[in-house]
């Protein structure tokens, strides 16, 4: 389809702003814009049709089954969108006098209280804008803690090999050296390897539990106490919290600091990549290091790390998450996580005989298939299968992650799918499986029914075209 620039015609525009009602002030000639530049010139109807067409070429949770592992693509309740658009939330300046923003403060305080109850933490900050941003802040708190306690030799951050890629990347941004901890045969932390890695130089361990294989590590209490005994701190990557919301709290498992992805567990929409919210929770020992807004004049904790962005965070996302938490309540949260785990196990059960499961064990909110043997046998890869699923109107699973599983497909159905939709999805997986043997070329060329065929990614990277030019 056309780019908005290709729909442009000189002179097309709309009048959004009034004529000036004040005198024209002298212009700073030296600084005025003189170099040539362009923006589209379109009438509003042309823009409206353009974006309608773009929306039609976008697959969202409302479009169909979206079992993208580790992303928790649950239904995004419409109420949350309505509430977030109340003018009393949208038209508020962040630097208004404190007594004129009591409602915003109430939202933040109540979200803090409820998220602390869910995570077993003592304090929440909503400043980080996304999960990775939360990891960055959480690790900064740890660094500040060790600096303040004169333990600057603690530079090693232990990260399991199954971890999300953001974990090691965040650790580096905080100056830690990453030490990879291998998984054992069961897909959980190799405790012996962990013991060997622990020492006076350990800053801490970053762990997601359930892990990215969808397995809850039963050794968790031993793991966190080993880290504590070595003088380190435990970081909980909350990306997978949807499995355990209301069932078990990271605080009780021995974690000191945690980030949450409000855009996963707490149902706020992903928006094609954001905005999310990476709220960070911590135990009392890390409270003195929390961030604050400089201009917002929030009370700055004594040894604050500063701030990781402007103002208070993605407030509008927190409004949505709070609405969700109020609606669900304690029982609803437990029901959501139980159903998410039930749905994952049910789908795994349905698919077990179609594609091999990487770790055949009760899973949590997600599970991982491996097509390594199929690839060896037929040459058809996980990518081919994923692309084949597109022709059945479904969003494929996460591909090639976690890295420790070859030819991985990772499925997370979430609680907002019915039994029937899981059965229907499994049927389509079976049809794709059959194609591996009956029509392998069709899979190699898949998808056939989408707006575009497979894009040439190598060409895109080798010869980058990153903007439109006339």
């Amino acid at each position, binding site marked *: 389809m056309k780019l908005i620039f290709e729909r442009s015609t000189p002179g097309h525009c709309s009048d959004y702003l009034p004529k000036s009602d004040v005198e024209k*002030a002298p212009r700073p000639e030296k600084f005025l814009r003189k170099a040539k530049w362009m923006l*589209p010139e379109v009438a509003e109807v042309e823009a409206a049709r353009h974006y309608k067409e773009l929306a039609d070429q976008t697959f969202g949770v409302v479009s169909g089954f979206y079992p993208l592992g580790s992303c928790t693509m649950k239904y995004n309740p419409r109420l949350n969108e309505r509430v977030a658009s109340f003018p*009393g939330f949208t038209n508020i300046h962040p630097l208004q006098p404190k007594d004129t923003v009591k409602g915003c403060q109430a939202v933040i305080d109540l979200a803090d209280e409820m998220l602390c*109850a869910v995570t077993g933490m003592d304090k929440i900050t909503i400043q980080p804008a996304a999960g990775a941003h939360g990891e960055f802040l959480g690790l900064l708190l740890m660094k500040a803690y060790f600096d303040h306690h004169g333990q600057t030799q603690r530079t090693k951050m232990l990260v399991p090999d199954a971890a999300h890629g953001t974990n090691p990347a965040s650790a580096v941004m905080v100056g830690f050296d990453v030490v990879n901890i291998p998984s054992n045969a069961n897909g959980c932390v190799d405790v012996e390897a962990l013991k060997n890695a622990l020492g006076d130089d350990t800053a801490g361990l970053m762990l997601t539990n359930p892990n990215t294989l969808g397995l809850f590590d039963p050794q968790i209490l031993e793991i966190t106490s080993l880290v504590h005994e070595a003088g380190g701190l435990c970081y909980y990557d909350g990306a997978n919290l949807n499995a355990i919301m209301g069932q078990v709290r990271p605080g009780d498992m021995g974690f000191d600091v945690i980030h949450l992805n409000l855009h996963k567990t707490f149902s706020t929409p992903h928006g094609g990549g954001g905005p999310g919210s990476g709220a960070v929770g911590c135990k009392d020992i890390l409270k003195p290091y929390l961030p604050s807004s400089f201009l917002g004049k929030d009370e700055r904790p004594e040894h604050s790390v500063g701030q990781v962005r402007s103002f*208070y965070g993605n407030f509008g996302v927190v409004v949505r998450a709070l609405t969700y938490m109020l609606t669900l309540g304690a029982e609803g949260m437990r029901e959501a996580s139980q159903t998410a785990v039930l749905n994952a196990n049910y789908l795994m059960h349905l698919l077990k005989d179609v594609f091999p499961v990487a770790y055949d064990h009760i899973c949590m909110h997600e599970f991982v298939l491996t097509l390594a043997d199929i690839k060896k046998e037929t040459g058809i890869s996980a990518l081919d299968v994923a692309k084949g699923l597109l022709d059945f109107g479904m969003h494929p699973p996460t591909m090639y992650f976690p890295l420790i599983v070859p030819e991985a497909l990772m499925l997370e159905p979430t609680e907002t799918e019915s039994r029937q939709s899981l059965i229907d999805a499994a049927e389509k997986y079976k049809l794709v499986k059959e194609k591996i043997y009956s029509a392998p070329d069709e899979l190699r060329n898949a998808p056939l029914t989408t707006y575009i065929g497979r894009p040439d990614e190598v060409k895109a990277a080798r010869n980058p075209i990153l903007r439109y030019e006339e």
Partner: protein
Amino acid sequence: MAGYIPSTSDERQLMLEELGMKDYKDLYVDVPASVLLDELPGVAKGISEMEAETAMRAMAEMNVLYPTVLRGAGIYDHYIPSIVDTVAGKEEFVTAYTPYQAEISQGVLQSIFEYQTMICELTGMDASNASVYDGASAAAEGSMMCLKRNRNVVYVADNANPETIETIKTYAYGRDVKVEMLSSKKGVIDVNVLEDALCDEAACLFVQQPNFYGLIEDIEAIADKVHNKGAKLIVGCYPTALGMLESPGALGADIATGDGQPLGIPMGYGGPTVGFMATKKAMVRQLPGRIVGQTTDSRGGRAFVLTLQAREQHIRREKASSNICSNQALCALRAGVYMAVMGKKGLSEAAELSYDKAHYLAKRLCEIPGIKMVYDGPYFNEFMTTLPVDAAQIEKALHKVGILSGLPVDGGMLWCVTEKATKEALDLTVQTVRGAVSK
């Protein structure tokens, strides 16, 4: 049915039985019994949608809405065309994930490609990423892009927004990088001493255009001096001002960053907004975050994909240029729609109206005894005045007539005017301030 689960408890019981399980506890056998909860304490019972809406509305109504906002300092009350809301409210855009599956995500990918192009045009740069969190984190990420082994000192102009300065310092603390503040003189950077102020290890200088006090910096002269020292120049810009002022790219900046909030995103108590980042060709591979590129598909047509992913955390892990994963895509979409429908003409109008109205207010305020401009250089739509009385007094008096005053700062008040302020509101401001001062 409870919450948003599309199955009854009977159906779920059936599913458990099909799995050979008795109840939910069987799903959680790996959780140590000592920490497994039977109930979640500290969280109230769930409520209906109607009750939840009422509860949230009550909180929204505890906030004060100002018909006129004369406060900026990072968040600006610009007019938002209604179509921006319509487009950004389309469910497909709202509920999609990061476009990993290009074949069913062309809409999102193309909208980002268009956004990247418009950001490049606005800033005079060659390449933009798909967005980062906000203007402050964009400035911090931009600073980190410039680090090299022998160039590891980041300079920041002391007249930048304090929120941005704090954020750069925090990112630098993480990487054990030294941050030096560059002192301004009479509100702006003193170009004559700039070269001497930078050390040989200077990686970059971050300046804000217009700066925190609303003053216009001489970017071209600054760029020359910074480049003479072998360092990079990062300019944090107010996008609306670029409807009138020369782009940082045309003036020699290496990286342009900023907060896209003025481009169709409501103030929203400071977030979500969108951070933009753009750079020249030479530094494209140092850009953090998602980037969309154009390619062809198997049928020979044009297609868009996430590209240059070898920079990113999910491929490179600890060797990535940044840890960023989620960005602010839906806000970037808003900015894209805003720029598309406003066009150069609309954006220039917003800039010129803001400029003229700010100068009108400044002139009228300075007629009041005891109020004068703190700095005399050219400014865009923010300016700082002295006050003959306590700032709180002015704030309170304007509050009573539905006007959010300028921001109280050391030495006076930092005012901001956008196209939304009418002459009538500005006259009322002057009249009210005059009254408060003479009391």
